């Protein structure tokens, strides 16, 4: 079974990929359809995401699932099943969305099946090989993705007008909340990371990663609004379309390929993270990793092959679905954290005197094998 321990810095990169990939693809278009081109909805999503990430980081730092050791089985098994289903569903929907995006952008003539079957190969490989492989792959592509993003943003050729961003409160806050929370599929990015354990906790990469990633998301949506204004409702994949107008277009051609390269890479890495999380959760229930991987990946592939694109598209933007996704995802994180807190509390409450009490206190501190030296 592959190890789930990665470096703090790698976690920060994964957070960046998770934050940017789908929040900058179709979400800005959906948001502008619901609440217009202003930033409040994006800010609300960001705040929720940051809170959830902080909870997950706390969970990881306290030892994560490894320290629970299948304690509280009646609570853990249903929790694992829900996490696995949540992540598998999210991965499947995004996988299908990514494949249709690819088809629309660069491969009109190809059949859906061909795209699904080829796109799944690197994703499945990384998901099966584990988070370490995903993290290392992300580490290699990170400088390239950042370079391509900076290049495309720095040389945008268009009439940018920041006034295209509407004032924040054009609607009552309750309406913003109602519409924003309906996009729950695009939230709870932190959930798969519950299964991580981190090296060198002390370094501030995780917090920097969260802060930088969500600042970048907000900045990109802000720039997108400034560039496209109300036309945002027609844009589709903002991440790629932002490359359409560039000062170097005459010399280098249509630079959308740069966006495609960066986005497709991030998509593969993020989707493999989702699938990996789902596999990890299911493995804790059925105990056989290969079987769990086969169930999730084959199930996901069959689903996207069978279900029509139009159904998926109309399904994911249904507000009820969004509320359920956000609620279920957040509840999983909170429940996991509660179980860990409960165990820690129980250990510290254990009686005994002298050495026994010292051992218990040490257990509570080193829960999950995290030694003081690691912290």
């Amino acid at each position, binding site marked *: 079974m592959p190890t789930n321990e990665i470096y703090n810095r790698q976690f920060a990169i994964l957070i960046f990929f998770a934050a940017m990939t789908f929040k900058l693809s179709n979400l800005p278009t959906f948001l502008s359809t619901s609440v217009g081109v202003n930033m409040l909805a994006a800010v609300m999503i960001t705040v929720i995401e940051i809170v959830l990430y902080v909870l997950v980081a706390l969970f990881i730092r306290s030892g994560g699932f490894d320290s629970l050791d299948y304690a509280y089985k009646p609570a853990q098994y249903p929790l694992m099943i829900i996490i696995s289903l949540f992540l598998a569903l999210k991965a499947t929907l995004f996988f299908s969305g990514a494949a249709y995006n690819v088809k629309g952008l660069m491969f009109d003539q190809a059949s859906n099946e061909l795209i699904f079957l*080829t*796109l799944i190969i690197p994703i499945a490989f990384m998901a099966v090989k584990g988070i370490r492989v995903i993290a*290392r792959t992300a*580490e*290699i592509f990170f400088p390239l993705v950042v370079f391509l993003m900076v290049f495309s943003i720095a040389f945008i050729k268009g009439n940018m007008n920041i006034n295209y961003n509407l004032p924040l409160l054009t609607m009552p806050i309750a309406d913003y909340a109602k519409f924003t929370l309906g996009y729950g599929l695009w939230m709870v990015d932190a959930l798969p990371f519950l299964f991580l354990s981190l090296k060198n906790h002390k370094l501030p990469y995780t917090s920097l990663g969260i802060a930088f990633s969500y600042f970048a998301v907000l900045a990109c949506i802000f720039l997108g609004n400034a560039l496209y204004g109300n036309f945002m409702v027609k844009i589709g994949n903002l991440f790629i379309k932002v490359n359409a107008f560039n000062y170097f277009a005459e010399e280098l051609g*249509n630079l959308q*390929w740069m966006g495609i390269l960066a986005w497709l890479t991030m998509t593969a890495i993020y989707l493999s993270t989702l699938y990996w999380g789902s596999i990890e959760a299911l493995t804790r229930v059925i105990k056989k990793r290969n079987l769990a991987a086969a169930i999730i990946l084959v199930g996901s592939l069959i689903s996207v092959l069978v279900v029509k694109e139009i159904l998926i598209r109309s399904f994911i933007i249904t507000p009820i679905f969004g509320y359920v996704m956000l609620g279920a995802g957040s509840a999983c994180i909170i429940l996991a954290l509660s179980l860990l807190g409960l165990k820690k509390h129980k250990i510290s409450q254990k009686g005994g005197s002298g050495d026994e009490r010292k051992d218990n206190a040490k257990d509570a501190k080193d829960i999950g094998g995290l030694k003081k030296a690691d912290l």
Partner: protein
Amino acid sequence: MKDIESELRQIEQAFLGSSDIRIRRINAGHAMAAIVYIDGLIDRELLEENVIKPLTHAEKLSPTAESIQRSIYYCEELRVKANREEIIELIAEGDIALLVEGSREYFGLSIRKYPRRAVEEPPTSTVFKGPREGFVEDIKTNLAMVRRRVRSPNLVVYMTKSGKLTGTPIAVIYIEGVASPHVVSKVKERIENINMDGIIDSSYVARYLEEKKYSLFTEVGVTEKPDIMTAKILEGRVAVIVDGSPIVLTVPMLLMEEFQDSFDYYNKSWRASLLRFLRLLGAFFTIFLPAVYLAFTAHAYSMLPLRFLMSVMNAVVGITFNAPIEMLVVLVLFEVLNQASLRMPRFLGISLSIVGAIVLGNTAVQAGLISSPAVLVTAVSAIGLFCVPDQVSTFSFLRMLVLIVSAVLGLFGVILAAIMLVAYLSNLNSYGAPYLAPYAPIVLPDMKDSFLKDGVPTMTKRPYSFPNRNRTRQRHPDQNS
């Protein structure tokens, strides 16, 4: 020993009557003695002068090791074997067996002299500056070259043999206190576990040292130069020298090593960094250029700049094959020419280059069978291939694979192939070292000797990317004062 003649018959029979077995009967100090050896493996002059002459001139020779040792001018300790099988093994290895009437034991002397190649510059690792010595096929010469560079008792040479029929000597070399004991024991264990009839070359051993059996990439470093090997063991790697092969193996291995060259260390660091980036670019061109060209021209031509697109379109007008077939044909032609030029006698190589470049390339373009951009792209890719000489076969295979993916899936396929390649490399480990280190995971101290190379005085620590001991290589220059 019952009877010397019967012993000699038994030894002859053990060698199945081979014609190159020589037996020399002599009278040594009034006792019958016989010398058995394989013709061509020993120094005949030394045998005559240092062994036979003193023995025949000895006035009295008792059949003991001490007496024989005193009688002959032979510097090494005489090896005494209790049974016939052991002495037969020594003869097969190229030693001399001495049988003395009345003795219960057999005696072995080693005055081997093989035909061997002189030390010269290896053809695959020529340098402008720096040492030009290369390893040869003889393990003792190779070990001497290493010992001459590392004059320390901490340099450990562990000798073993492998191959049931060949009995090939293999040396595991490392520096005690620097190499990781875990890596050393793993290497030794894997070599001890080889159970095949013969080890002909170090590449046989390399296959057993690799972590993944069917890996596309080489997981064992190779070098033909003692200076490179020395540098590697000084970093904490373990080297393996196999008798009969000028290629020395080193583990653990990182992909980054393929982009490093000994010349980098004998040059200014900015120059070395530039060269390493150029090698990386060469590798990228090799694997991806034909595929990217094909993806853009056949599938995503709308993304090309207009003037470039017009040039390409003008060049491909009237070409018989479509772009994917054309590119495949050109690449296959290149591979065939490459193979032919490797195997052809050297004096015919120039003729082959002319045939390849002018007759095939030029004529095919003029005949409208292939386009000039396709030839250009293949040529650039082929040149790039040799920027990383140890991965030629892997890169060549990947180039063909990515090209086929590109032909079917266009730019989408090329991007997927790139992701898959990086993911595959991320999954490789060599003796506890991540194959893509120091880039994945990022190992900041080792960045000093990655694509950006720092000067030698600043490399105060041994690499962190792979397991080793005693990280300090030198005190920081400031600390010396």
